[in-house]
């Protein structure tokens, strides 16, 4: 600290000195100018009275020559002064440049100051000059910002700034870029469900034409990039691998489960398990009294929610019904999600219920929606729900209270999905649009994807693409990877 103060003192003194010097020079210059002016005046007078004086030139030279000499000298001195003045002025402004304020703050103080800034201001400061650039590239600071923004750490401890930029760029892509759209028109009924496992290139779609299909997303051909909209019956970018036929009614939900199997729930009140290599139905789970509206699974258990207001839990190995959770009569289950030992379910009568599987007891419910809840997603203690009251709500499971309400959809919200960080949300609605939201800035959607010609029933997304299914009988892939 002492060093900093000394430096400050020194610079201030220097600045004062240069200032003083400049003022002195200005004063001197003024005096010289005055003298020069007088001499000029005298010279003028002399020239006019020269004729009247009636003197020989030698005499005149002898009498007044020194005045002319003085004039010359004065001119020289003024020129000299100007030179000195200019030099000094440069010095002064130069020392002011470096003085202005940066050097007065030692680096460690600057580190404290920049803690109060946001990443945007830090990035701006880093572009100002080299010294600030070095200060602003403090890894610990960016680590704090990274964890603050995405609530997670990364393995590579030394690279937070680059990782931050990379992740940020990826996120901004979703809010500011137009995606490349591929449209798949293969189903002959509304597409009601989609399942996509992050990172794989396979996805499944189910339709109310009672079929389900397995698709493979191919690596894009390098020459194909740059095409903005791809509207074919089926694009080259995606190929259909298998169709699954066998349900006696529309399929409402599908899910990829371990061992490369597919589970589908249907209007025919059954859940079917399919082998995704062969496309054959391997087993049928019966038990529900009404149609199946939703499915979820983990490594061991499969849960099915039904319009008969119950949730059945099946063991995936023995395919036995191990638990049944009953909701109030008539309060149908429209969506569920399984996490750990708990099931969270959106219900037809506006509430979201939380059950414990082992005991089968209702342990909480979230009240706030004014219409049926159509979609629910959970990430640890944060729950997102989409409802027929046109809103998406975010809830905190610890307090069982609504934290955020995302308003913007013009009609029923039918589906939603979260990203891994639980910060970016996509929701699809009867108003034909898909809206992408940022949970840090919930006042308005960050991006609105329009293209479906009817209600959007289902969607899934990962870091680069969003897949949506609609009642216009198409599946669309919105690709945000580098265009």
């Amino acid at each position, binding site marked *: 600290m002492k060093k900093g103060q000394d430096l400050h003192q020194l610079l201030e003194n220097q600045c004062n000195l240069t200032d003083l010097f400049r003022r002195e020079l200005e004063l001197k210059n003024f005096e010289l100018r005055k003298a020069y002016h007088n001499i000029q005046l005298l010279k003028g007078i002399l020239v006019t009275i020269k004729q009247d004086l009636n003197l020989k030139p030698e005499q005149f030279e002898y009498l007044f020559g020194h005045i002319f000499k003085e004039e010359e000298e004065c001119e020289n001195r003024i020129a000299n002064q100007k030179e000195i003045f200019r030099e000094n002025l440069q010095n002064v402004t130069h020392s002011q440049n470096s003085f202005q304020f940066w050097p007065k703050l030692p680096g460690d103080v600057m580190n404290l100051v920049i803690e*109060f800034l946001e990443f945007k201001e830090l990035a701006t400061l880093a*572009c100002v000059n080299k010294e600030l650039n070095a200060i602003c590239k403090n890894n610990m600071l960016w680590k704090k910002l990274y964890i603050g923004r995405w609530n997670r750490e990364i393995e590579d401890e030394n690279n937070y700034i680059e990782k931050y930029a990379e992740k940020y760029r990826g996120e901004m892509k979703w809010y500011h870029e137009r995606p490349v759209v591929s449209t798949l028109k293969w189903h002959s009924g509304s597409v009601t469900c989609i399942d996509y496992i992050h990172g794989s290139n396979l996805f499944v779609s189910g339709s109310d034409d009672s079929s389900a299909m397995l698709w493979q997303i191919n690596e894009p051909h390098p020459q194909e990039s740059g095409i903005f909209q791809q509207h074919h019956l089926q694009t080259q970018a995606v190929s259909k691998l298998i169709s699954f036929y066998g349900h006696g009614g529309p399929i409402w939900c599908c899910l990829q489960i371990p061992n490369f199997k597919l589970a589908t729930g249907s209007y025919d009140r059954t859940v079917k398990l399919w082998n995704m290599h062969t496309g054959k139905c391997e087993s049928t789970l019966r038990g529900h009294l009404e149609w199946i509206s939703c499915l979820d699974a983990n490594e061991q258990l499969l849960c099915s929610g039904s319009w008969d207001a119950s949730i059945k839990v099946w063991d995936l190995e023995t395919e036995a019904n191990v638990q049944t959770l009953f909701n109030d009569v008539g309060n149908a289950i429209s969506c569920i999600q399984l996490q750990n030992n708990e099931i969270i379910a959106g219900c037809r009568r506006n509430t979201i219920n939380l059950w414990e599987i082992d005991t089968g007891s209702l342990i909480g419910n979230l009240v706030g929606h004014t219409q049926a809840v159509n979609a629910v997603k959970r990430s640890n203690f944060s729950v997102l729900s989409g409802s027929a009251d046109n809103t998406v709500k975010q809830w905190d499971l610890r307090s069982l209270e609504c934290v955020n309400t995302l308003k913007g959809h013009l009609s029923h919200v039918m589906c939603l999905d979260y990203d891994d960080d639980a910060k970016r949300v996509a929701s699809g609605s009867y108003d034909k649009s898909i809206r992408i939201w940022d949970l840090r800035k919930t006042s308005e959607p960050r991006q609105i994807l329009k293209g479906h010609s009817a209600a959007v029933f289902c969607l899934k997304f990962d870091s680069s693409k969003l897949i949506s299914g609609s009642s216009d009988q198409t599946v669309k892939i919105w690709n945000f990877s580098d265009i």
Partner: protein
Amino acid sequence: MFYNFNKIEEVKIRLRSAEGHICEVEESAALMSSFIRSMIEGFNEVTEVSLPNINSVVIEKVIEYMRHYKDKDPPIIKKPIISSKMEENTSAWDAGFIDADWNMVVDLMTAADYLMMIPLRDLCCAKMACKFKGRSIDELRAEYHIENEFPSEMEENLEFQHPWRLE
């Protein structure tokens, strides 16, 4: 053991500034500074603390702060700050207190650091940070007479590294 119950006046701590002036402050207020606290607790009966690198104007200012927050906790400033106006970042009293010229803020900040008064130090830092809040690169360069040290191709590279302009 004798205890003087009639003792009404609180113990005053005498702070000796760089110029040698003495500023008096009540003990309870002075304890806000961890530095003074450790001096008092470390050596019994210490009533004078010498602060050779803080001048008396700054000490007066620090004492003003100490007296104001004698019985209450200073408000905590959120990181990052919300606005470039201090009134929106902290309480009105704090904003008025720190509304001083730049040199004063810097001196106050170094003094707070020395005296180990974290809330005051944060207040000063926030005030300084306000200077950078919401400014563009060119504005900052113009204000502080900084020449562009980066060659143009490197500047593009910087833009690429920091894609934050989008939001």
